[in-house]
């Protein structure tokens, strides 16, 4: 395929439908019929849905018009598939032996990926490989949790799902090394639109970790519209990290849908370090009794960045536990949104839920919107939430200065300390170390 096959899509929604037709006609992919049906249903849903505006309650503080008004090139084939390893190395947390899948502008790179030495039964592969067959779990699981019916961005992703990650951990398996999924965007003349798609299954009693990295070696504008579906079967434990290090002009809209079965533990940390507009939806369904989730987030927002974390936790069954701890540090004219909703259904007695969002504003121009909320329809529950937006504690600044620490360093130390609460909860030591390094570097700059 050559450059002539590139497709301009947007700003008119109709363009997406046209693009879809071309996409399907030129794709000589031997995908299974069930998958093609999914895609057809998704694109017809796109036609019915509208892009959200700020009148939509869920998008009140995030204006997507700069994203959808753009014209993007849809990368049917990679312009570049020979990115030198050195370009992705900085994003590997110093762990080049971790199993990883690398996608360049949305296209799988076998050369940069590394899946050797995985324990038997573990599957880590390009999603496209499993979409050719009628068998196996992808047919049962894909599009089951991230429903195209509800959100246009999810529907778009479902329509254009092509390459992505398929990760499966077999029953009872405990794997120490996390599986790293890396979506790297490289410079291009046109704005690129990518639909990263991940399916992660932790089977009964499995213990594992997955890291999604969205990184860029590009200053130019592009749009990543990502969807991940994660399933934890009974007794499974999964750590999930989403690391957003998109380029300064990049748009990122991502949805992670998590389904937790009985007695599972899901821990996540969503880390926003880059992107012009970055919205991360995280929906956790504690679908069965005794499921527990711990959702952390950290965002460093600067210049004209906008970061939106939208978290929805469903407690449909009794004895579910959910924790949210999101912290943000903003400077420049950065804006952030925390919208955390915990929905406690009538059957969900003995629910235990805590939501916390704290924001540190370092400049007058920065703003943080925070909306932690509960909707509770059960009576025997323990739910608390708290939110704070504030400046650095001047008493603490004075204390540090009184020890000879300079003004700038004193403020940086306090920011570092503020972020540490989240960073220190990260169980993967290399990830924690890398974040620590990023923090120290950022807060040493000033």
């Amino acid at each position, binding site marked *: 395929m050559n450059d002539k096959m590139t497709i301009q899509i947007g700003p008119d929604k109709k363009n997406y439908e046209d693009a879809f037709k071309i996409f399907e006609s030129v794709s000589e992919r031997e995908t299974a019929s069930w998958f093609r049906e999914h895609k057809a249903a998704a694109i017809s849903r796109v036609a019915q849905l509208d892009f959200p505006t700020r009148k939509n309650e869920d998008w009140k503080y995030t204006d997507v018009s700069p994203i959808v008004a753009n014209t993007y090139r849809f990368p049917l084939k990679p312009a570049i598939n020979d990115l030198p390893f050195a370009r992705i190395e900085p994003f590997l947390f110093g762990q080049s032996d971790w199993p990883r899948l690398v996608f360049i502008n949305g296209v799988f790179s076998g050369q940069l990926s590394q899946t050797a030495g995985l324990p038997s039964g573990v599957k880590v592969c390009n999603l496209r490989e499993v979409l050719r067959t009628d068998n196996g779990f992808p047919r049962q699981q894909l599009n089951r949790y991230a429903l195209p019916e509800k959100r246009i961005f999810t529907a778009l992703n479902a329509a254009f799902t092509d390459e992505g990650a398929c990760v499966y951990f077999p029953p009872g398996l405990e794997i120490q090394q996390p599986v790293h999924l890396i979506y790297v965007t490289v410079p291009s003349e046109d704005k690129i639109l990518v639909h990263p798609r991940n399916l992660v299954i932790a089977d009964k009693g499995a213990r594992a970790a997955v890291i999604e990295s969205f990184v860029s070696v590009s200053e130019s504008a592009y749009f990543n519209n990502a969807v991940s579906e994660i399933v934890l079967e009974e007794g499974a434990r999964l750590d999930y990290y989403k690391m957003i290090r998109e380029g300064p002009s990049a748009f990122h809209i991502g949805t992670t849908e998590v389904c937790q079965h009985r007695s599972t533990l899901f821990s996540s940390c969503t880390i926003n370090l880059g992107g012009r507009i970055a919205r991360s939806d995280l929906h956790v369904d504690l679908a069965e009794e005794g499921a527990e989730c711990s959702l952390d987030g950290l965002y460093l927002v600067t210049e004209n960045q906008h970061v939106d974390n939208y978290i929805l936790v469903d407690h449909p069954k009794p004895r579910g536990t959910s924790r949210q701890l999101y912290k943000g540090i903003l400077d420049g004219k950065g804006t952030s949104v925390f919208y955390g909703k915990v929905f406690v259904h009538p059957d969900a007695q003995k629910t235990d839920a805590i939501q916390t969002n704290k924001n540190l504003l370092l400049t007058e121009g920065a703003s943080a919107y925070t909306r932690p909320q509960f909707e509770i329809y059960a009576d025997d529950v323990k739910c608390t939430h708290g939110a704070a937006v504030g400046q650095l*504690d*001047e*008493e*603490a600044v*004075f*204390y*540090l*200065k*009184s*020890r*000879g*620490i*300079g*003004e700038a*360093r*004193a403020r940086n*130390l*306090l920011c*570092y*300390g*503020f*972020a*540490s*609460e989240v960073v*220190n909860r990260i169980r993967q030591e290399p990830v924690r170390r890398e974040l620590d390094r990023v923090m120290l570097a950022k807060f040493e700059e000033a």
Partner: protein
Amino acid sequence: MLEVKNLRVSVEGKEILKGIDLTVRPGEVHAIMGPNGSGKSTFAQVLAGNAAFTVTAGEVLYEGQNLLEKAPEVRAREGVFLAFQYPTEIAGVSNAYFLRAAVNDLRAAQGLEAIDAMDFLELMKEKMKIVEMDESFVARPVNEGYSGGEKKRNEILQMAILEPKLAILDETDSGLDIDALKIVSAGVNRLRSPKRSILLVTHYQRLLNYIVPDYVHVLVDGKIVKSGGKDLAFQLEEKGYDWVREPGAMKK
């Protein structure tokens, strides 16, 4: 070392210190005693450079230089140290990291090169023995979740590491049980030297049994109303602060 002349200080428009005069020579230990609200802590905070207080008149010379025009960090680097009455909690920053940052900023100001993490750790552990602190406090966040006594010990630990020329100890005895008081006092006594001056700010005479001052000053309503030797503290303990109060001040 320190010369305070007619120092007047206000906070939010209210005058707290109403003309303080005090001279401290190298190696001397002075106790500033006074009832609650007399301005003792204000005096300590002003010497350290807390911007929440406004100096409206007077001057403070430290080693012959105008102390009041210097930033708090500069004062610290030149040897002024305040042990806080209520040490601030610094979440997420380990004691070791914080103190090494302080030492290295201090060393940089003296034209010395930074001390590396391992060497610093050794130094810190050595100094921790002075106040009998457990090694776990190396990695614990600064003052966060410490008991009152642990915070006070941590202040003296910082003093031991930073080696100031003028140490101001603000109510270092408050909230300490007798054992902790002995440990903290012994730590301070070990840091006494002919070159180091100490200003003890305290409400009670009790501390002065352990750290014996050369001079005692009584601060009432923003003024030093009486000065004397260490015996003055005993008299105060016996007779109470009303004994030295000015008749006018009692009426309010």
